[in-house]
Protein backbone atom coordinates (compact mmCIF):
# COMPACT_ATOMS: atom_id res chain seq x y z
CA UNK A 1 0.00 0.00 0.00
CA UNK A 2 1.43 3.30 -1.07
CA UNK A 3 1.24 6.19 1.40
CA UNK A 4 -1.87 4.71 2.94
CA UNK A 5 -3.63 4.81 -0.39
CA UNK A 6 -6.23 2.11 -0.67
CA UNK A 7 -8.57 1.86 -3.62
CA UNK A 8 -11.05 0.07 -1.43
CA UNK A 9 -11.16 2.79 1.20
CA UNK A 10 -11.61 5.36 -1.55
CA UNK A 11 -14.44 3.39 -3.04
CA UNK A 12 -16.09 3.24 0.36
CA UNK A 13 -15.72 6.95 0.91
CA UNK A 14 -17.19 7.63 -2.48
CA UNK A 15 -20.08 5.37 -1.75
CA UNK A 16 -20.69 7.12 1.56
CA UNK A 17 -20.63 10.56 -0.03
CA UNK A 18 -23.05 9.44 -2.68
CA UNK A 19 -25.36 8.00 -0.06
CA UNK A 20 -25.25 11.24 1.92
CA UNK A 21 -26.13 13.26 -1.17
CA UNK A 22 -28.94 10.92 -2.05
CA UNK A 23 -30.28 11.13 1.49
CA UNK A 24 -30.27 14.91 1.45
CA UNK A 25 -32.12 14.93 -1.85
CA UNK A 26 -34.64 12.39 -0.60
CA UNK A 27 -35.15 14.28 2.65
CA UNK A 28 -36.07 17.38 0.70
CA UNK A 29 -38.45 15.36 -1.42
CA UNK A 30 -39.96 13.64 1.60
CA UNK A 31 -40.53 16.92 3.43
CA UNK A 32 -42.26 18.31 0.35
CA UNK A 33 -44.38 15.19 0.02
CA UNK A 34 -45.28 15.27 3.70
CA UNK A 35 -46.31 18.88 3.48
CA UNK A 36 -48.46 18.29 0.44
CA UNK A 37 -49.95 15.20 2.05
CA UNK A 38 -50.66 17.08 5.28
CA UNK A 39 -52.42 19.92 3.50
CA UNK A 40 -54.36 17.63 1.20
CA UNK A 41 -55.31 15.35 4.07
CA UNK A 42 -56.66 18.20 6.19
CA UNK A 43 -57.92 20.33 3.39
CA UNK A 44 -59.73 18.08 0.97
CA UNK A 45 -62.75 17.75 3.28
CA UNK A 46 -63.43 21.43 2.76
CA UNK A 47 -63.26 21.26 -1.02
CA UNK A 48 -66.52 21.08 -2.87
CA UNK A 49 -68.25 23.00 -5.60
CA UNK A 50 -69.69 25.62 -3.26
CA UNK A 51 -66.33 26.16 -1.62
CA UNK A 52 -64.85 27.16 -4.94
CA UNK A 53 -67.75 29.19 -6.28
CA UNK A 54 -69.45 30.93 -3.35
CA UNK A 55 -68.74 33.89 -1.13
CA UNK A 56 -67.84 33.20 2.48
CA UNK A 57 -70.66 33.59 4.95
CA UNK A 58 -71.43 33.15 8.64
CA UNK A 59 -68.05 34.50 9.78
CA UNK A 60 -66.16 32.34 7.28
CA UNK A 61 -67.72 29.19 8.65
CA UNK A 62 -69.93 28.67 5.63
CA UNK A 63 -69.88 29.43 1.93
CA UNK A 64 -66.77 29.48 -0.20
CA UNK A 65 -63.63 31.35 -1.10
CA UNK A 66 -64.38 32.53 -4.63
CA UNK A 67 -63.43 36.18 -4.01
CA UNK A 68 -60.10 35.12 -2.52
CA UNK A 69 -59.33 32.87 -5.49
CA UNK A 70 -60.16 35.58 -7.97
CA UNK A 71 -58.37 38.20 -5.91
CA UNK A 72 -55.19 36.17 -5.94
CA UNK A 73 -55.47 35.62 -9.68
CA UNK A 74 -55.99 39.35 -10.24
CA UNK A 75 -53.08 40.24 -8.02
CA UNK A 76 -50.73 37.74 -9.62
CA UNK A 77 -51.71 38.74 -13.15
CA UNK A 78 -51.58 42.44 -12.29
CA UNK A 79 -48.15 42.15 -10.76
CA UNK A 80 -46.92 40.54 -13.98
CA UNK A 81 -48.38 43.41 -15.98
CA UNK A 82 -46.16 45.66 -13.88
CA UNK A 83 -43.01 43.59 -13.60
CA UNK A 84 -42.71 41.91 -17.01
CA UNK A 85 -42.43 45.07 -19.12
CA UNK A 86 -40.24 46.80 -16.55
CA UNK A 87 -38.09 43.75 -15.91
CA UNK A 88 -37.71 42.71 -19.54
CA UNK A 89 -37.06 46.32 -20.52
CA UNK A 90 -34.42 46.74 -17.85
CA UNK A 91 -32.80 43.45 -18.83
CA UNK A 92 -32.67 44.38 -22.51
CA UNK A 93 -31.20 47.74 -21.63
CA UNK A 94 -28.56 46.21 -19.39
CA UNK A 95 -27.48 43.49 -21.81
CA UNK A 96 -27.85 45.15 -25.18
CA UNK A 97 -27.77 48.90 -24.88
CA UNK A 98 -25.95 50.10 -21.78
CA UNK A 99 -22.24 50.63 -22.11
CA UNK A 100 -20.50 48.36 -19.64
CA UNK A 101 -19.24 50.45 -16.78
CA UNK A 102 -19.74 51.41 -13.14
CA UNK A 103 -23.32 52.58 -13.67
CA UNK A 104 -24.41 49.24 -15.09
CA UNK A 105 -22.61 47.38 -12.31
CA UNK A 106 -24.37 49.51 -9.72
CA UNK A 107 -27.76 48.89 -11.32
CA UNK A 108 -27.09 45.17 -11.42
CA UNK A 109 -25.99 45.18 -7.78
CA UNK A 110 -29.12 47.12 -6.88
CA UNK A 111 -31.34 44.60 -8.63
CA UNK A 112 -29.61 41.71 -6.88
CA UNK A 113 -30.03 43.36 -3.49
CA UNK A 114 -33.63 44.22 -4.16
CA UNK A 115 -34.29 40.50 -4.43
CA UNK A 116 -33.07 40.02 -0.88
CA UNK A 117 -35.30 42.68 0.68
CA UNK A 118 -37.96 41.08 2.93
CA UNK A 119 -41.41 41.28 1.46
CA UNK A 120 -42.86 43.16 4.42
CA UNK A 121 -40.49 46.01 3.56
CA UNK A 122 -41.98 46.10 0.06
CA UNK A 123 -45.37 46.12 1.75
CA UNK A 124 -44.49 49.14 3.85
CA UNK A 125 -43.01 50.87 0.81
CA UNK A 126 -46.17 50.16 -1.18
CA UNK A 127 -48.26 51.42 1.71
CA UNK A 128 -46.33 54.66 1.87
CA UNK A 129 -46.04 55.24 -1.88
CA UNK A 130 -49.13 53.83 -3.55
CA UNK A 131 -51.74 53.59 -0.79
CA UNK A 132 -50.99 56.89 0.91
CA UNK A 133 -48.64 58.81 -1.39
CA UNK A 134 -50.51 58.42 -4.66
CA UNK A 135 -53.80 58.05 -2.81
CA UNK A 136 -54.71 54.76 -4.47
CA UNK A 137 -55.87 53.50 -1.08
CA UNK A 138 -55.78 49.86 -0.12
CA UNK A 139 -56.71 48.50 -3.48
CA UNK A 140 -56.08 45.99 -6.21
CA UNK A 141 -53.99 48.65 -7.95
CA UNK A 142 -51.75 49.29 -4.95
CA UNK A 143 -51.39 45.55 -4.43
CA UNK A 144 -50.43 44.87 -8.04
CA UNK A 145 -47.93 47.70 -8.09
CA UNK A 146 -46.37 46.53 -4.83
CA UNK A 147 -46.20 42.90 -5.91
CA UNK A 148 -44.89 44.07 -9.27
CA UNK A 149 -41.97 45.80 -7.58
CA UNK A 150 -41.46 42.79 -5.34
CA UNK A 151 -41.15 40.43 -8.29
CA UNK A 152 -39.18 42.85 -10.45
CA UNK A 153 -35.71 41.66 -9.35
CA UNK A 154 -36.48 38.00 -10.06
CA UNK A 155 -37.92 38.84 -13.44
CA UNK A 156 -35.06 41.17 -14.34
CA UNK A 157 -32.26 38.87 -13.22
CA UNK A 158 -33.68 35.83 -15.02
CA UNK A 159 -34.35 37.83 -18.18
CA UNK A 160 -30.85 39.26 -18.14
CA UNK A 161 -29.33 35.83 -17.71
CA UNK A 162 -31.39 34.48 -20.60
CA UNK A 163 -30.45 37.38 -22.86
CA UNK A 164 -26.80 37.01 -21.95
CA UNK A 165 -26.90 33.34 -22.88
CA UNK A 166 -28.23 34.13 -26.33
CA UNK A 167 -25.23 33.92 -28.63
CA UNK A 168 -23.69 37.20 -29.70
CA UNK A 169 -23.48 35.70 -33.17
CA UNK A 170 -27.27 35.98 -33.57
CA UNK A 171 -27.06 39.71 -33.02
CA UNK A 172 -24.11 40.03 -35.41
CA UNK A 173 -25.87 38.04 -38.11
CA UNK A 174 -28.99 40.20 -37.92
CA UNK A 175 -27.05 43.45 -37.92
CA UNK A 176 -24.97 42.29 -40.87
CA UNK A 177 -28.20 41.71 -42.80
CA UNK A 178 -29.24 45.30 -42.32
CA UNK A 179 -31.31 45.07 -39.16
CA UNK A 180 -31.08 47.92 -36.72
CA UNK A 181 -30.38 47.09 -33.11
CA UNK A 182 -33.96 46.98 -32.01
CA UNK A 183 -34.96 44.77 -34.94
CA UNK A 184 -32.14 42.39 -34.10
CA UNK A 185 -33.31 42.19 -30.52
CA UNK A 186 -37.00 41.89 -31.26
CA UNK A 187 -36.82 39.46 -34.17
CA UNK A 188 -33.88 37.29 -33.25
CA UNK A 189 -32.65 37.73 -29.69
CA UNK A 190 -35.97 37.92 -27.86
CA UNK A 191 -37.53 34.82 -29.44
CA UNK A 192 -34.38 32.90 -28.59
CA UNK A 193 -34.21 34.19 -25.03
CA UNK A 194 -37.90 33.96 -24.25
CA UNK A 195 -37.93 30.50 -22.62
CA UNK A 196 -35.32 31.60 -20.12
CA UNK A 197 -37.08 34.87 -19.53
CA UNK A 198 -40.32 33.03 -18.87
CA UNK A 199 -38.65 30.94 -16.20
CA UNK A 200 -38.12 34.09 -14.21
CA UNK A 201 -41.73 35.00 -14.74
CA UNK A 202 -42.83 31.57 -13.51
CA UNK A 203 -40.92 31.96 -10.28
CA UNK A 204 -42.18 35.49 -9.87
CA UNK A 205 -45.77 34.50 -10.51
CA UNK A 206 -45.62 31.82 -7.83
CA UNK A 207 -44.12 34.27 -5.41
CA UNK A 208 -46.70 36.94 -6.18
CA UNK A 209 -49.57 34.53 -5.68
CA UNK A 210 -48.27 33.39 -2.31
CA UNK A 211 -47.19 36.70 -0.78
CA UNK A 212 -49.08 37.70 2.34
CA UNK A 213 -47.50 40.62 4.18
CA UNK A 214 -47.40 43.10 1.27
CA UNK A 215 -51.00 42.34 0.41
CA UNK A 216 -52.21 42.82 3.95
CA UNK A 217 -50.60 46.24 3.90
CA UNK A 218 -51.68 47.39 0.46
CA UNK A 219 -54.66 45.53 -0.90
CA UNK A 220 -56.36 43.00 1.30
CA UNK A 221 -59.89 43.06 2.55
CA UNK A 222 -60.74 40.63 5.35
CA UNK A 223 -64.09 40.25 3.76
CA UNK A 224 -65.66 41.82 0.73
CA UNK A 225 -69.27 41.28 -0.20
CA UNK A 226 -68.70 41.70 -3.93
CA UNK A 227 -66.02 40.98 -6.48
CA UNK A 228 -63.84 43.97 -7.27
CA UNK A 229 -65.23 45.94 -10.17
CA UNK A 230 -62.46 48.49 -10.29
CA UNK A 231 -58.74 48.70 -9.72
CA UNK A 232 -59.47 50.86 -6.68
CA UNK A 233 -61.42 48.19 -4.79
CA UNK A 234 -59.94 46.21 -1.98
CA UNK A 235 -59.60 42.53 -2.78
CA UNK A 236 -59.54 39.34 -0.82
CA UNK A 237 -56.74 36.89 -1.50
CA UNK A 238 -55.98 33.30 -0.60
CA UNK A 239 -52.96 33.83 1.63
CA UNK A 240 -54.55 36.69 3.56
CA UNK A 241 -57.75 34.71 3.84
CA UNK A 242 -55.83 31.89 5.48
CA UNK A 243 -54.08 34.37 7.70
CA UNK A 244 -57.34 35.98 8.76
CA UNK A 245 -59.14 32.74 9.47
CA UNK A 246 -56.18 31.38 11.41
CA UNK A 247 -55.49 34.46 13.53
CA UNK A 248 -58.62 36.61 13.85
CA UNK A 249 -62.18 36.18 14.89
CA UNK A 250 -64.02 33.98 17.28
CA UNK A 251 -64.02 30.83 15.20
CA UNK A 252 -60.42 29.94 14.63
CA UNK A 253 -60.98 26.31 15.55
CA UNK A 254 -64.21 25.91 13.61
CA UNK A 255 -62.62 27.20 10.42
CA UNK A 256 -59.54 24.99 10.66
CA UNK A 257 -60.66 22.67 7.89
CA UNK A 258 -61.43 25.67 5.67
CA UNK A 259 -57.99 27.08 6.41
CA UNK A 260 -56.43 23.92 5.08
CA UNK A 261 -58.90 23.86 2.22
CA UNK A 262 -57.86 27.37 1.27
CA UNK A 263 -54.19 26.44 1.56
CA UNK A 264 -54.84 23.49 -0.71
CA UNK A 265 -56.44 25.73 -3.31
CA UNK A 266 -53.56 28.19 -3.08
CA UNK A 267 -51.06 25.41 -3.51
CA UNK A 268 -52.92 23.94 -6.45
CA UNK A 269 -53.15 27.37 -8.02
CA UNK A 270 -49.44 28.09 -7.69
CA UNK A 271 -48.47 24.64 -8.95
CA UNK A 272 -51.01 24.95 -11.75
CA UNK A 273 -49.69 28.33 -12.83
CA UNK A 274 -46.16 26.97 -12.82
CA UNK A 275 -47.26 23.97 -14.79
CA UNK A 276 -48.83 26.08 -17.50
CA UNK A 277 -45.71 28.19 -17.76
CA UNK A 278 -43.46 25.13 -17.72
CA UNK A 279 -45.40 23.66 -20.61
CA UNK A 280 -45.06 26.88 -22.62
CA UNK A 281 -41.39 26.96 -21.81
CA UNK A 282 -40.86 23.34 -22.79
CA UNK A 283 -42.56 24.03 -26.11
CA UNK A 284 -40.30 26.99 -26.78
CA UNK A 285 -37.19 25.15 -25.69
CA UNK A 286 -37.83 22.29 -28.05
CA UNK A 287 -37.30 24.73 -30.87
CA UNK A 288 -33.93 25.74 -29.49
CA UNK A 289 -30.75 24.03 -30.58
CA UNK A 290 -27.62 25.98 -29.90
Amino acid at each position, binding site marked *: MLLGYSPKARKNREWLALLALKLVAYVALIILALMIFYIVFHGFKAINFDFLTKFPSDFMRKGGILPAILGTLYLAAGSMVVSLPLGFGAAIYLTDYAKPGPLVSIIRLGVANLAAVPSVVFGLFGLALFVVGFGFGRSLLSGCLTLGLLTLPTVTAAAEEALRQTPQ*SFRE*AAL*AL*GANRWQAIRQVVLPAALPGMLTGAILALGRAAGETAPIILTAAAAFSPALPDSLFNEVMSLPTHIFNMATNGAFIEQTRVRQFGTALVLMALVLGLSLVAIVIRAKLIRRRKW
Partner: protein
Amino acid sequence: MVKPPAISARSVSFYYGEFQALRDINLEIAKDEITALIGPSGCGKSTFLKLLNRMNDFVPGARLSGEIIIGGVNVYGPQADPVEIRRKVGMVFQKPNPFPKSIYDNICYGPRLVGVKKKSALDEVVEKALKAAALWDDVKDKLNKSAFELSGGQQQRVCIARALALEPDILLMDEPTSALDPIATAKVEEWIKQSKLSIVIVTHNMQQAARISHGTAFFYMGELIEFAPTLTLFTSPKESRTENYITGRFG
Protein backbone atom coordinates in the same frame (compact mmCIF):
# COMPACT_ATOMS: atom_id res chain seq x y z
CA MET B 1 -10.73 49.00 -69.85
CA VAL B 2 -9.96 48.57 -66.20
CA LYS B 3 -12.93 48.16 -63.92
CA PRO B 4 -13.13 50.53 -60.99
CA PRO B 5 -12.21 48.78 -57.74
CA ALA B 6 -14.98 47.31 -55.60
CA ILE B 7 -13.45 48.78 -52.49
CA SER B 8 -10.69 51.31 -51.94
CA ALA B 9 -9.28 51.85 -48.50
CA ARG B 10 -7.39 55.12 -48.21
CA SER B 11 -5.05 55.73 -45.27
CA VAL B 12 -7.27 53.75 -42.94
CA SER B 13 -6.24 53.66 -39.31
CA PHE B 14 -8.41 52.15 -36.65
CA TYR B 15 -8.32 52.23 -32.87
CA TYR B 16 -9.99 50.17 -30.17
CA GLY B 17 -9.78 52.82 -27.46
CA GLU B 18 -6.06 53.53 -27.05
CA PHE B 19 -5.00 50.46 -28.99
CA GLN B 20 -4.24 51.01 -32.65
CA ALA B 21 -5.37 47.89 -34.52
CA LEU B 22 -4.79 49.14 -38.08
CA ARG B 23 -2.07 51.48 -39.35
CA ASP B 24 -2.50 53.50 -42.48
CA ILE B 25 -3.94 50.82 -44.74
CA ASN B 26 -4.14 51.58 -48.46
CA LEU B 27 -5.75 48.84 -50.47
CA GLU B 28 -7.75 48.54 -53.67
CA ILE B 29 -9.95 45.47 -53.88
CA ALA B 30 -10.78 44.41 -57.41
CA LYS B 31 -14.33 44.10 -58.61
CA ASP B 32 -15.75 40.62 -59.26
CA GLU B 33 -12.61 39.00 -57.95
CA ILE B 34 -11.68 37.07 -54.87
CA THR B 35 -9.29 38.78 -52.51
CA ALA B 36 -7.75 36.89 -49.61
CA LEU B 37 -6.54 38.52 -46.40
CA ILE B 38 -3.87 36.55 -44.62
CA GLY B 39 -1.62 37.18 -41.64
CA PRO B 40 -0.90 35.96 -38.14
CA SER B 41 -3.54 35.95 -35.43
CA GLY B 42 -4.30 39.39 -34.06
CA CYS B 43 -2.86 41.27 -37.02
CA GLY B 44 -6.14 43.00 -37.76
CA LYS B 45 -7.70 40.98 -40.59
CA SER B 46 -11.12 40.70 -38.97
CA THR B 47 -10.96 44.29 -37.85
CA PHE B 48 -10.32 45.43 -41.40
CA LEU B 49 -13.05 43.19 -42.79
CA LYS B 50 -15.62 44.48 -40.33
CA LEU B 51 -14.76 48.04 -41.23
CA LEU B 52 -15.94 47.37 -44.76
CA ASN B 53 -19.58 46.92 -43.73
CA ARG B 54 -19.41 49.04 -40.60
CA MET B 55 -19.81 46.16 -38.20
CA ASN B 56 -17.32 47.87 -35.92
CA ASP B 57 -19.80 50.66 -35.28
CA PHE B 58 -21.03 48.72 -32.27
CA VAL B 59 -17.68 48.53 -30.52
CA PRO B 60 -17.62 51.15 -27.77
CA GLY B 61 -14.64 53.49 -27.92
CA ALA B 62 -13.64 52.53 -31.46
CA ARG B 63 -12.32 55.22 -33.79
CA LEU B 64 -11.41 55.37 -37.46
CA SER B 65 -9.48 57.74 -39.67
CA GLY B 66 -9.18 57.60 -43.42
CA GLU B 67 -11.71 56.67 -46.05
CA ILE B 68 -13.28 53.51 -47.35
CA ILE B 69 -14.83 54.01 -50.76
CA ILE B 70 -17.42 51.54 -51.98
CA GLY B 71 -19.36 52.29 -55.15
CA GLY B 72 -17.93 55.78 -55.27
CA VAL B 73 -19.09 56.71 -51.76
CA ASN B 74 -17.12 56.96 -48.54
CA VAL B 75 -18.92 54.48 -46.28
CA TYR B 76 -17.85 56.57 -43.28
CA GLY B 77 -18.91 59.80 -44.91
CA PRO B 78 -21.64 61.97 -43.45
CA GLN B 79 -24.36 60.83 -45.88
CA ALA B 80 -23.55 57.14 -45.66
CA ASP B 81 -26.26 54.95 -44.17
CA PRO B 82 -24.76 51.96 -42.35
CA VAL B 83 -27.88 49.85 -42.76
CA GLU B 84 -27.85 50.44 -46.50
CA ILE B 85 -24.16 49.57 -46.65
CA ARG B 86 -24.67 46.30 -44.78
CA ARG B 87 -27.30 45.31 -47.32
CA LYS B 88 -24.92 45.95 -50.20
CA VAL B 89 -21.95 44.41 -48.45
CA GLY B 90 -22.91 41.03 -47.07
CA MET B 91 -21.00 39.13 -44.42
CA VAL B 92 -20.43 35.48 -43.58
CA PHE B 93 -18.91 34.71 -40.21
CA GLN B 94 -16.32 32.28 -38.94
CA LYS B 95 -18.76 30.02 -37.16
CA PRO B 96 -21.97 29.21 -39.00
CA ASN B 97 -24.56 31.36 -37.24
CA PRO B 98 -27.99 30.62 -38.62
CA PHE B 99 -30.91 32.00 -36.64
CA PRO B 100 -32.92 29.52 -34.58
CA LYS B 101 -35.58 29.63 -37.25
CA SER B 102 -36.51 27.55 -40.25
CA ILE B 103 -34.23 27.47 -43.28
CA TYR B 104 -36.87 29.44 -45.15
CA ASP B 105 -37.11 32.14 -42.50
CA ASN B 106 -33.34 32.39 -42.30
CA ILE B 107 -33.07 33.19 -45.98
CA CYS B 108 -36.02 35.58 -45.87
CA TYR B 109 -34.71 37.58 -42.95
CA GLY B 110 -32.94 40.23 -45.03
CA PRO B 111 -35.60 40.59 -47.74
CA ARG B 112 -38.31 40.87 -45.09
CA LEU B 113 -36.39 43.67 -43.42
CA VAL B 114 -36.56 45.65 -46.62
CA GLY B 115 -40.28 45.04 -46.80
CA VAL B 116 -40.71 42.08 -49.12
CA LYS B 117 -43.90 40.42 -47.89
CA LYS B 118 -45.47 38.55 -50.77
CA LYS B 119 -45.17 34.79 -50.38
CA SER B 120 -44.47 34.24 -54.06
CA ALA B 121 -41.68 36.82 -54.08
CA LEU B 122 -40.13 35.32 -50.97
CA ASP B 123 -40.37 31.81 -52.37
CA GLU B 124 -38.49 32.99 -55.40
CA VAL B 125 -35.80 34.69 -53.33
CA VAL B 126 -35.32 31.56 -51.23
CA GLU B 127 -34.96 29.28 -54.22
CA LYS B 128 -32.61 31.60 -56.00
CA ALA B 129 -30.39 32.18 -52.96
CA LEU B 130 -30.23 28.50 -52.06
CA LYS B 131 -29.39 27.57 -55.63
CA ALA B 132 -26.70 30.23 -55.71
CA ALA B 133 -25.24 28.78 -52.53
CA ALA B 134 -25.37 25.26 -54.00
CA LEU B 135 -27.69 24.10 -51.27
CA TRP B 136 -31.03 23.91 -53.02
CA ASP B 137 -30.90 20.20 -53.80
CA ASP B 138 -29.93 19.35 -50.21
CA VAL B 139 -32.74 21.23 -48.55
CA LYS B 140 -35.55 21.87 -50.99
CA ASP B 141 -37.76 19.32 -49.25
CA LYS B 142 -37.19 20.62 -45.74
CA LEU B 143 -37.32 24.37 -46.01
CA ASN B 144 -39.50 24.58 -42.93
CA LYS B 145 -37.13 22.57 -40.78
CA SER B 146 -34.92 24.40 -38.32
CA ALA B 147 -31.60 25.44 -39.82
CA PHE B 148 -29.99 23.88 -36.75
CA GLU B 149 -30.85 20.44 -38.05
CA LEU B 150 -28.36 20.80 -40.89
CA SER B 151 -24.70 19.82 -40.87
CA GLY B 152 -22.08 22.48 -40.20
CA GLY B 153 -21.23 22.85 -43.86
CA GLN B 154 -24.87 23.12 -44.81
CA GLN B 155 -25.42 25.67 -42.07
CA GLN B 156 -22.58 27.75 -43.41
CA ARG B 157 -24.11 27.61 -46.87
CA VAL B 158 -27.45 28.68 -45.36
CA CYS B 159 -25.58 31.69 -43.99
CA ILE B 160 -24.13 32.35 -47.43
CA ALA B 161 -27.57 32.03 -48.98
CA ARG B 162 -28.99 34.32 -46.32
CA ALA B 163 -26.44 36.95 -47.27
CA LEU B 164 -27.02 36.39 -50.99
CA ALA B 165 -30.77 36.86 -50.60
CA LEU B 166 -30.13 40.60 -50.39
CA GLU B 167 -28.21 40.43 -53.67
CA PRO B 168 -25.15 42.16 -52.28
CA ASP B 169 -22.44 43.58 -54.53
CA ILE B 170 -19.72 42.43 -52.20
CA LEU B 171 -19.43 39.50 -49.82
CA LEU B 172 -17.12 39.54 -46.81
CA MET B 173 -16.15 36.18 -45.38
CA ASP B 174 -14.25 35.83 -42.12
CA GLU B 175 -12.61 32.40 -42.04
CA PRO B 176 -15.81 30.86 -43.38
CA THR B 177 -14.47 27.31 -43.44
CA SER B 178 -12.47 27.17 -40.24
CA ALA B 179 -15.31 25.39 -38.42
CA LEU B 180 -15.94 22.95 -41.25
CA ASP B 181 -14.60 19.54 -42.21
CA PRO B 182 -12.66 19.08 -45.47
CA ILE B 183 -15.67 18.00 -47.52
CA ALA B 184 -17.82 20.89 -46.36
CA THR B 185 -14.85 23.19 -46.88
CA ALA B 186 -14.48 21.97 -50.44
CA LYS B 187 -18.15 22.70 -51.10
CA VAL B 188 -17.90 26.22 -49.77
CA GLU B 189 -14.67 26.84 -51.69
CA GLU B 190 -16.28 25.52 -54.83
CA TRP B 191 -19.10 27.95 -54.33
CA ILE B 192 -16.73 30.85 -53.78
CA LYS B 193 -14.75 30.08 -56.93
CA GLN B 194 -17.75 29.92 -59.24
CA SER B 195 -19.57 32.93 -57.79
CA LYS B 196 -19.39 36.11 -59.77
CA LEU B 197 -19.27 38.38 -56.74
CA SER B 198 -16.53 40.54 -55.35
CA ILE B 199 -15.43 38.53 -52.34
CA VAL B 200 -13.05 39.44 -49.56
CA ILE B 201 -12.09 36.39 -47.56
CA VAL B 202 -10.00 36.13 -44.41
CA THR B 203 -8.22 32.84 -44.08
CA HIS B 204 -5.57 31.18 -41.99
CA ASN B 205 -5.20 28.48 -44.55
CA MET B 206 -2.55 29.42 -47.06
CA GLN B 207 -3.50 26.62 -49.43
CA GLN B 208 -7.02 27.91 -49.40
CA ALA B 209 -5.89 31.41 -50.30
CA ALA B 210 -3.79 29.96 -53.09
CA ARG B 211 -6.60 27.75 -54.34
CA ILE B 212 -9.36 30.29 -54.58
CA SER B 213 -8.14 33.88 -54.60
CA HIS B 214 -6.98 36.21 -57.35
CA GLY B 215 -5.25 38.65 -55.07
CA THR B 216 -3.80 38.22 -51.60
CA ALA B 217 -3.05 40.83 -48.96
CA PHE B 218 -0.66 40.06 -46.14
CA PHE B 219 -1.30 41.89 -42.86
CA TYR B 220 1.15 42.02 -40.01
CA MET B 221 0.63 43.79 -36.69
CA GLY B 222 -1.97 46.13 -38.03
CA GLU B 223 -0.08 46.98 -41.20
CA LEU B 224 -0.62 45.93 -44.77
CA ILE B 225 2.77 44.53 -45.67
CA GLU B 226 2.18 43.35 -49.19
CA PHE B 227 -0.65 43.04 -51.64
CA ALA B 228 -0.17 41.24 -54.95
CA PRO B 229 -1.75 38.75 -57.31
CA THR B 230 -1.97 35.51 -55.33
CA LEU B 231 0.47 33.56 -57.44
CA THR B 232 3.06 36.34 -57.25
CA LEU B 233 2.68 36.75 -53.51
CA PHE B 234 3.13 33.07 -52.83
CA THR B 235 5.95 32.42 -55.30
CA SER B 236 8.00 35.58 -55.17
CA PRO B 237 7.07 37.82 -52.26
CA LYS B 238 8.88 41.12 -52.15
CA GLU B 239 8.93 41.48 -48.38
CA SER B 240 10.90 39.18 -46.13
CA ARG B 241 8.08 39.29 -43.55
CA THR B 242 5.67 37.93 -46.13
CA GLU B 243 8.09 35.21 -47.05
CA ASN B 244 8.66 34.28 -43.43
CA TYR B 245 4.94 34.00 -42.87
CA ILE B 246 4.05 31.97 -45.91
CA THR B 247 6.93 29.62 -45.36
CA GLY B 248 5.79 29.14 -41.78
CA ARG B 249 8.70 30.78 -40.01
CA PHE B 250 6.35 32.68 -37.74
CA GLY B 251 2.66 33.28 -37.29
